[in-house]
């Protein structure tokens, strides 16, 4: 798993996730393409397969989705890497939220609120759509993964199902090798 450890890669991890954390608008899942670009394409920390697996494992772990950064960090430098990546991803936005959250009363109800929400929603949609393509191409374009994806999209769009049931069904279908 280790494709290079030591202080150098810890610094790279901290620097990358620290910067990424401030650009992660619309939650952790919209930052997936950037994580893939850097960790798989640029640094070769993980293979496509390992990235897809990390994404799946993060989805299966209760808690915030961006826990995937701990798994990427773990691939780079074990437990220490996981902790560094997580702190780098959470620290800068937390400091930001601490100060803005305290000052937010002054801004409430201003028009910028509406403008910003209108402006960021389309960007978030584009980012999430990009995340879908990155995940699907990491998983590999085969009949099974595409069939599961389409079925899940339809099920989640038209019915309200708990994600845990969807994941369980998908895991069983995957394991059985039915498709």
């Amino acid at each position, binding site marked *: 798993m280790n494709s290079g450890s030591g202080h150098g890669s810890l610094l790279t991890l901290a620097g990358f996730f620290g910067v990424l954390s401030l650009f992660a608008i619309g939650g952790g899942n919209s930052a997936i393409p950037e994580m893939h670009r850097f960790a798989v394409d640029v640094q070769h920390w993980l293979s496509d397969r390992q990235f897809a697996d990390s994404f*799946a494992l993060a989805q299966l772990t209760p808690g915030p989705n961006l826990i995937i950064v701990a798994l990427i960090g773990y691939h780079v430098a074990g*437990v220490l890497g996981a902790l560094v990546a997580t702190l780098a991803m959470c620290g800068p*936005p937390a400091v930001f939220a*601490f100060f803005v959250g305290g000052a937010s009363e002054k801004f409430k109800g201003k028009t910028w609120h509406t403008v910003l929400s209108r402006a960021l929603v389309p960007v978030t949609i584009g980012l999430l*759509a*990009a995340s879908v393509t990155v995940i699907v191409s990491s998983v590999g374009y085969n009949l099974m993964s595409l069939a599961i994806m389409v079925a899940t999209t339809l099920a989640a769009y038209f019915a309200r199902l708990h994600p845990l049931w969807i994941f369980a069904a998908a*895991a069983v279908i*995957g394991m059985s090798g039915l498709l």
Partner: protein
Amino acid sequence: MSASLIPSAAEPEASPFAASPQLPPPTLAELFVAFATISLSGFGGVLAWSRRLMVEERKWLTAEQFNEVYALCSFLPGGNIINFSVVFGARFGGVRGALAAMSGLMGPPVLLVLIIAAIYAHYGDLPVLRRALIGVAAAAAGLMMATVAKMARPLFRNGAWRGPLIALATFVAIGIVHWPLPLVLVVIVPVSIAAAMVRQ
């Protein structure tokens, strides 16, 4: 509309929540436990759980206050729920409150995922596990796709074209051309803000 607009002379420190909670404010330990509970029970949707616990069970926030804080947090960079824990913890306990809430939220899942990572390092190559994970990843991508569809629907109202165009441009730049995220956002966010202001 909300109690936070009523000026409270008694406690200038605890601004928005001072007037309303029916129960005493949480201690540091309660903050930690509350966010650990939210984190560990919040499968695929931490928001629903945090609302249930904060508003319905503990009554630390009214529904309006919850919406206000959550709306604010979704505009801040980073994970929404992490920002929520910081803002919420800070308002009840300053820096220590923020740290208690955030470590409650992140500590248990990080511990869990490390155990999972160690197991994966040993058994990740088993074909059965491989296929199961492919299934889960594909399903999670499908869930995301459904979210995209639900979010995109209102964009097309009244023949609007700026929103869909910006979504499409973002998608192509990130998902197809694979340009770096900071670079793309530095260009597209100002453009999108300008477009949103024109529409006003």
